[in-house]
C-alpha cells in the first residue's frame, strides 16, 4: 500500500541522513576505542578479568547507545521543525502519522546498526582476551538485546518530547525520564513508607506511567554468566513494544495538531 511505502521511504532516508552524521560516527569510534581499552583495564583488575571485560564492554555500548539515541532522537522531529526541512515532507501527500512512524523506524534502524557494530567490536575484544569463543560467551547478547529495547523506548521519548518542545529541552526531558526510569522501584517503595495516602497514590501512578527501565538492566548479571529466563525476555519485549506504541500514539496525537510557522 502506498502509505506503507511512504513510511518505508521516510524510514530509509532518515536512516541515511542519521548514519552519515559526523557526530554519530565519532561516537561509535569512541565506543570501540573504549571497548578496546577494556582489554587493558581488565588486566589491571585483580581476579576479575572476564567480569570487568563484560561489564565495561556492555556499559560502553549502553552509555554510547544512550547518547546516540537522545542525540539523533532530537534531530528527528525538533531539528526538522527548527530547520524547516519538514515543509518539504508535509507539503507532499504524506500524512503526519506516516511521518512520525517513518521517522521512528528510521532511527531505530540506525541504533540497531550502530549497536551491531559496537557488539562486533565487543566480541573481537573478548576473543582477543580469551583466545577463544565458546557458547557461553554469547550470553551477553541477551543483555545487549535488553539495552536495545531500552534505547527503543528512549527514542520514543525523544520523539514525544520533540513534538512539544525545542531540541535542547527535549534532550533534557528525555534524559531526565531515563534517569527517573531507573529509580521507579525506589520511588514506589518511598511511597509505601510515607504516611500521606496522596503520596502513596502518586508514586503508584508514576510507577506504572513512566517507563520502568531498571527491569532491562542485565549487564551485571550477564557478567556473572547468568542466563536470562525466556519468560523475562518475552515480558520485557512486550513491555517495550507496548510502551513504544503508547509513546508514538501520544506523539501522533500532538503532532496532528502542531503548526509549522
Amino acid at each position, binding site marked *: *500500500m*502506498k502509505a506503507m511505502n511512504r513510511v518505508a521511504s521516510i524510514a530509509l532516508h532518515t536512516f541515511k541522513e542519521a548514519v552519515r552524521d559526523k557526530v554519530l560516527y565519532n561516537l561509535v569510534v569512541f565506543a570501540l576505542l573504549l571497548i578496546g581499552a577494556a582489554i587493558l583495564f581488565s588486566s*589491571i*583488575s*585483580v*581476579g*576479575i578479568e572476564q*567480569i*570487568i571485560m*563484560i*561489564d*565495561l564492554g556492555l*556499559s560502553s555500548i*549502553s*552509555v554510547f547507545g544512550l547518547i546516540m539515541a537522545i542525540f539523533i532522537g532530537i534531530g528527528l522531529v525538533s531539528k526538522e521543525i527548527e530547520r524547516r526541512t519538514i515543509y518539504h515532507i508535509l507539503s507532499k501527500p504524506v*500524512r503526519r*502519522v506516516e511521518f512520525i512512524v517513518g521517522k521512528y523506524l528510521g532511527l531505530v534502524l540506525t541504533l540497531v546498526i550502530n549497536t551491531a557494530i559496537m557488539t562486533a567490536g565487543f566480541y573481537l575484544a573478548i576473543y582477543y582476551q580469551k583466545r577463544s569463543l565458546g557458547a557461553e560467551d554469547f550470553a551477553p547478547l541477551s543483555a545487549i538485546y535488553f539495552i536495545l529495547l*531500552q534505547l527503543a523506548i528512549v527514542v520514543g521519548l525523544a520523539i514525544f518530547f520533540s513534538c512539544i518542545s525545542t531540541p535542547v529541552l527535549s534532550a533534557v526531558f528525555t534524559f531526565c525520564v*531515563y*534517569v527517573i526510569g*531507573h*529509580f521507579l*522501584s*525506589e520511588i514506589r*517503595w518511598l511511597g509505601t513508607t510515607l504516611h500521606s495516602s496522596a503520596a502513596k497514590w502518586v508514586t503508584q501512578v508514576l*510507577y*506504572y*506511567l513512566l517507563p*520502568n*527501565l*531498571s*527491569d*532491562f*538492566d542485565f*549487564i*551485571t*548479571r550477564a*557478567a*556473572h554468566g547468568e542466563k536470562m*529466563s525466556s*519468560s*523475562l525476555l518475552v*515480558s*520485557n519485549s*512486550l*513491555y517495550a513494544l*507496548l*510502551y513504544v*506504541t*503508547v509513546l508514538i*500514539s*501520544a506523539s*501522533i*496525537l500532538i503532532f*496532528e495538531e502542531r503548526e509549522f510557522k
Partner: protein
Amino acid sequence: MTAAAPSKSGLHSTRNACWALLVLGFLALFAVQRQIDRETDVYAKINEVLYVRSGTTLRSLCLGNEGLLADIYWTRAVQYFGRGLMEGTGERRFELLAPLLRITTDLDPQLIIAYRFGAIFLMARRPVGAGDPQGALQLIRRGIVANPDYWRLWQDLGFVYYWELHDYKSASKMFAIGSQQPGADFWMKALAGTVAAKGGDLETSRFLWSEIYRHAETDAVRKTAEYHLASLKARVDLDKLNDLLEIYRRKTGHDAHSIYDLTSSGLLSGLPKDPSGIPYVIGPDGHAALGEGSSVDLRMVQ
C-alpha cells in the same frame, strides 16, 4: 486502495486509533509490569536484608552500570589495601577496607571474590589484616544471602569462627550447613565433626589454610595463606622437636643444649629447617625455637 476517504473522517479515524492505542497500551503495560515484578521478586527479597535502600539506591544511581562501578571499587579496595606494601612501609591500610568492600558488594552482590578477600583480611589480626572478625562475619553473611548456592562462603564463615574467634561450636555448625549446599566438597561434613569433637588443632588448621591457598583468587590471599601455613608447619615441627627433647631427657637424664645433641643421639637424622630455610635451635629455656634470621612469625598461630 488509492485515494483517501473524505479526509475529515480519515483524520478522525487516525485520532481514534491513537487514543485507543494509548488507553489500551497503558492498560496492557500495567498488566505486563506486574508480571515482570513477580519475576524479579527474588531480587527484591534479597534487597530487604541487604541494608535495603542505601544499597539499592546506590545501584539505581548507576543506571544499569552498577557492575562496572563494583569492579572499579573492588580494584580500589585491593589497591588501597596493598598501597602500604607498595610504598615500602610494609604497612597495610585497613580503615577503609570494610567500607570499600561494603560498597563493592552493595553494587554487585555477586562479586564473590570480594567476600572471600574480606573474610581473610578483615578477620586477621594486625599487621596482617584489619583485626575485625565481626566485620568479616557481617560481610560473609551478606554474601551468603545474595549467593545462597555458594558453599565456600559457609566455609569462610566457619573459618572465621574457628581461627579467630575460637568459637568451635559455631564453626562446626557453619561447616555442617555448608556441607549440605549443592556441590560442597566431601570434607566439609567430616570437618564439622572434627571441629565439634576436638576444637582447634594444628592438623585441622593446616588443612583449612591449605584449602584457602589452593583456591585463592588474589595474590594477597595466596601469600597470607602461605605465611600461615609456614607458621603452622613451624609450630608442628617445633612441637615434634619438643617431643624429641622430652625423649632425650628421659633417655639421658639431662636436657639437650643444642640440636646436635639430638642428632648425635640418633633421635634426629638431619638438621631440620623451618619453612624459611633457617635451621631450628634449642632456646635458652630448653625448648625448641626458631633460628636467628627466620622470617616465620609464630604469633600468627598463637
